């Protein structure tokens, strides 16, 4: 499987925020997107999964076969917001996403265990602390399978231990032949990840 | 009211509304033109102008 970006440029509110981004990522590879605030990291991730149209260039995903025809189908997008409903319990949230996203992978209970949240699945999501919320959102990546993970500052709010745990989860995903693109300000603890440094569009 | 008054009212209202519309558009135009001038005086040019210039030069 390959995720290829060719001469991408992205636009926000009619303004180019980055341009000329190209890379090709194969199975088992990770790409860290870094850069100052407002450089366009989040915008790049949204363009990669097709939530925003690219202003120029194109994104292609190949080798996914029938299951993953394009990058929108093949990716898990973990944005700044956790995409969980505060009024539903953590388990209800995860079970919903598993059924809706399809390709079930881990059982929600197991997934919660993997992120160290076992025992609080019955709590409404709105009762969790910031870091716990983020971990519940990470558990969503595990309940359904997707080869590509697009992560936007995945470790924001996590404590030291959970950061390590998450690095291990990413490691396993890469070993299984997955791809990861992560926008981040903090080192994610992945060995051998490539780095894409963004500096915003030239004027 | 006599019939003539109705006719007069109808034409009067129409003239008023159309005049207001026209004046509004003219004022809007003038304001935009002024803003553009101001920006150009401050030395800001559109990206496409520069690109366009580049393209002309290439031809």
């Amino acid at each position, binding site marked *: 499987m390959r995720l290829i970006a060719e001469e991408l440029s992205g636009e926000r509110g009619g303004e180019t925020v980055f341009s000329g981004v190209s890379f090709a990522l194969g199975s088992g590879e990770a790409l860290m997107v870094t850069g100052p605030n407002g450089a366009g990291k989040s915008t790049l991730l949204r363009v990669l999964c*097709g939530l925003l149209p690219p202003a120029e260039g194109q994104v292609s995903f190949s080798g996914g076969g029938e299951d993953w025809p*394009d990058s*929108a189908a093949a*990716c898990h997008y973990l944005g700044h917001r956790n995409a969980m*409903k*505060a009024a539903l319990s953590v388990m209800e949230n995860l*079970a*919903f996403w598993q059924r*809706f996203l399809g390709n079930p992978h881990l059982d929600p209970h197991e997934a919660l265990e993997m992120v160290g949240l076992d025992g609080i699945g019955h709590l409404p999501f709105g009762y969790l602390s910031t870091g716990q919320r983020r971990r519940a959102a990470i558990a969503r990546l595990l309940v359904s399978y997707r080869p590509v993970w697009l992560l936007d500052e995945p470790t924001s709010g996590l404590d030291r231990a959970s950061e390590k745990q998450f690095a291990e989860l990413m490691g396993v995903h890469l070993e299984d032949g997955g791809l990861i693109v992560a926008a981040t300000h903090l080192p994610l603890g992945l060995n051998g990840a490539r780095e894409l440094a963004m500096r915003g569009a030239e004027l | 009211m006599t019939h003539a008054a109705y006719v007069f009212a109808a034409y009067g209202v129409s003239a008023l509304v159309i005049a207001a519309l026209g004046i509004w558009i003219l004022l809007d135009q003038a304001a935009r033109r002024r803003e553009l001038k101001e920006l150009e005086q401050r030395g800001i040019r559109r990206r496409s102008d520069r690109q366009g210039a580049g393209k002309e030069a290439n031809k």
Partner: protein
Amino acid sequence: MLALFLRETRLGVRAGSGALTGVLFFLAVVAVIPFGVGPDLNLLARIGPAILWIGALLASLLGLERLFQADREDGSLDLLLLTGHRHMTALTVFVKCLAHWTVNVLPLVVVTPLLGLFMNLEPLGIAAATATLAVGTPAITFIGAVGAALAVALPRGGLLVSVLILPLTIPVLIFGVAAARGAVADPDPFLPPFLILAALMLFFAVIGPLAAALALRWSGD
């Protein structure tokens, strides 16, 4: 899709004051009209179906503007849109509309017979009004979905959504009232307007979600 339907209804029931606000508003509308027209029971019976319809139409506007906004704010909307290859976005919208209707509008239909009694309608008229409401109100929700999708990027689109969709709901209202009245007022027929109403509902059940899906796809940010 069933999962989505269940989630939405659960959310609606659990979090929302939606259902009851709607019913109470409906009640308020129906309660206040007799004050306006005075105690003339015949007149009341005559305009009864229209009042019920207008009440239902306005009540179903409540909460409609949040249909997609809540999802957008917590980031779910992104994921719903991303699964477009697996669940057509229009279908997702359709299911959300259905859930919204079940939670917020169905209760109105259920209390209609009671209100019909208040308005001095005869049994046949009550049955007809209830039937037309059951068939017609989904159309309003589907039209509303378009408005909600158009206004999703606006922080407080409430009124704007209603403004955008009210003119579009007028045909539904016309045929709904015509059918409800046709069942009792003798020269007027019941079936033709009722069938047109059903056709309108089906039409909007297709067009509404498609247009809303389009609007959502392009709201992208």
